[in-house]
């Protein structure tokens, strides 16, 4: 670069230069190497740093946390924002369709059902994952015990308070031991953006199968495509073995 004190051939300065120029330092090279080094090594420590930062924000209000781009590695999606709201006094969870006895639970009745805990990984079809998510909720067997599915039932639909959103599982899929209707996440009631007060958790399938803000299960004799399946994703969303992955 031309940082020479000497003007070009034939050139004359309009005014004397008041700033004393040096010959230029290789700051650019240092910035380049530093940025590359930071970026490449962050493949190793980036996730740990995000986790650490995330933990350090745990004292902040949930609304603030969700606005921070390292919220425990989650990316929050909704098909029809704003997120549905939960009113504990009026909220109900309904089981209907091909059952002997349609039933409606209040939130407190749901919490009184036999509870299960699990720590499982969460995988999104868009490529991100969150490891070791701690859930607490109700297994579907316990949830359906009183309603008693009819022999003609082949599967179930999980309806969301978020209008339009529904997804499905066959009875066999719903019977997997780690499938649950969760109401706690990391030891706290499920936050609004994660599906408060209840959401489906299906660890062996991609996240779009886990209906958030779920408040209704309908037993059916024929499985239809859910919200994202109508839009092209696979109905059987096995992690690592579906959607072209």
């Amino acid at each position, binding site marked *: *670069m*031309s*940082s*020479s004190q000497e*003007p*070009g*051939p*034939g*050139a*004359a*300065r*309009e005014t004397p*230069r008041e*700033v*004393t*120029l*040096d*010959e*230029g*330092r*290789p*700051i*650019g*090279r240092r*910035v*380049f190497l530093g*940025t*590359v080094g930071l*970026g*490449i090594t*962050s*493949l*190793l*420590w*980036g*996730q*740990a740093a*995000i986790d650490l930062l995330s933990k350090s924000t745990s004292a902040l209000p949930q609304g603030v946390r969700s606005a921070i781009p390292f919220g425990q*590695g989650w990316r929050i*999606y909704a*098909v029809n924002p704003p997120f549905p709201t939960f009113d504990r006094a009026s909220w109900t969870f309904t089981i209907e369709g091909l059952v002997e006895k349609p039933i409606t639970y209040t939130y407190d009745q749901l919490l009184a059902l036999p509870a299960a805990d699990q720590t499982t990984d969460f995988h999104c*079809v*868009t*490529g*991100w*994952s969150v*490891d070791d998510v701690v859930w607490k909720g109700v297994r579907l067997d316990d949830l359906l015990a009183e309603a008693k599915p009819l022999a003609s039932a082949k599967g179930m639909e999980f309806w969301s308070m978020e209008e339009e959103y529904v997804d499905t599982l066959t009875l066999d899929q719903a019977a997997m031991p780690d499938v649950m209707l969760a109401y706690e996440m990391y030891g706290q009631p499920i936050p609004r953006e994660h599906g408060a007060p209840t959401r489906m958790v299906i660890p062996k399938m991609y996240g779009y199968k886990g209906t958030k803000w779920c408040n209704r299960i309908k037993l059916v004799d024929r499985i239809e495509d859910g919200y*994202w399946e109508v*839009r*092209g*994703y696979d109905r059987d969303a096995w992690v*690592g073995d579906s*959607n*072209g*992955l």
Partner: protein
Amino acid sequence: MSEPASSTPPPGHVGAIGPRASYQHRVHRFSGSERALHMVHGSSFLAMMATGFMLGLPCMVKAYGAEHRPLVLDVHLVIAALWATALSLVWIFGDRARLRHTREQFESLDADDLLWLRSKAARQAPQARFNGGQKLHAIVQAALTVILFASGIALWVELKASGFAVPGALGVHDYAMAVAVFFVVGHVGMALSPRIRTSLPSILRGTVPASYARSHHADWDESDDPREIRPPRTAGRLFVGAVALGCGVVVAVALTNV
């Protein structure tokens, strides 16, 4: 400057650009290799950004139909392979000495560059062929490109090799892209600003009006930047380039089929 002087400069407008420069006269700023590099990098970046958004944003997946997402992923990978190949071809066929010369200019920041970066009010500080902002942008973009390629390769291996996982890869890829987009928006915004819009065609044509060079790059002595330092020799390079292009196509096909 290699072109002959064509007119007498207006009084009082004589700087590092030299007395030959006038308002009508144009001075050579970017070589063909530099313009090709900029074109390849810029267009590839925009294509990668577009397909990246299409992969990562559910609202976009919904718009084009999730059944096409594997195809979009393939397109993203093919563009990445062709991007690397095209950059290699520019390096192979281009004026490498001139590109090295330009890289050295980017790497070296003097007091006026730092003054330019430090304060908007200080942007009258005389600049050389590139101002402080252009240098910083080029440096950061180059670094981010390396990071995007590295994290992208990690993601691809993770996708194809079950059991292999780099937990931070997607975060690094996305954050690097976010920073890159931030810089590109600033770069394009400044390029389009009325103050310097005059120079915009120079990235396509290679020249800027001498008056512009004098007022915005008063510390630029264009005799330091010959149009060509080492003209490319075609024979051997054609062969190497063909091999590079072939390798790029093979890699692109392999990425989508493995």
